[in-house]
């Protein structure tokens, strides 16, 4: 078995597990009772989506597409900081 067939087979088998975990994260985004729960779920979803983009760029054989995964990993945590600053400034010393 050559390298290309091995990599394609393993990554194709792994795709449904990734999609299932994304659906579970999305359930928590929809269901989350408070704002920090939703922000936390979107945060984890973004990190795993960045890893998934790197894996998918190997699977579809175009390695230049990895830059979008890097950008998503660098920017998705900014939402945490904004929401945290808003919640801290609203009720100080609670």
């Amino acid at each position, binding site marked *: 078995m050559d390298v290309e067939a091995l990599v394609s087979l393993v990554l194709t088998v792994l795709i449904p597990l990734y999609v299932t975990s994304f659906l579970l994260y999305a359930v928590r985004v929809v269901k989350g009772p408070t704002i920090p729960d939703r922000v936390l779920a979107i945060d984890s979803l973004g990190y795993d989506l960045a890893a998934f983009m790197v894996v998918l760029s190997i699977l*579809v*054989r*175009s390695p*230049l*597409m990895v830059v979008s995964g890097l950008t998503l990993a660098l920017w998705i945590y900014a939402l945490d900081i904004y929401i945290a600053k808003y919640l801290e400034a609203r009720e100080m010393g609670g």
Partner: protein
Amino acid sequence: MSDPVSLLLTVLVLSLVTNIGISLYGVFTRPSLVKKFISLTIFSDTLNSFAIALGFRRVARGYPSIAVIPSIPEDVSELRAAAGTAVDPLPQALVLTAIVIGLAVYMFLAGLIVMYYRHYGTTHVRPAEGGSIG
């Protein structure tokens, strides 16, 4: 329609059409200006994704690649083979400009909403039409 790939692409386009309907509902009927702002951003993003979906193209075998030719081709047939497996790069260039200009427009709208709040004391649209919040 029996082809599963075209069925899935149909599902994608119908979902985007549903998004356009929901966001236009938000722009037209929600009373708060901030909610109109959020719905307008969603509407603009959905229109951009229609342009991207227009440039997607199915190739004979395998998955299409991005339109990058890393080395100078020797003759025309090599260039034709590279162009035959790539998606259309022109809608991507147009959408790139649309996203950046849209950001400037949203900044201006945010400034206008803050001015509105300082003048009327609320973000409800009713006082601008001459009525009162009831």
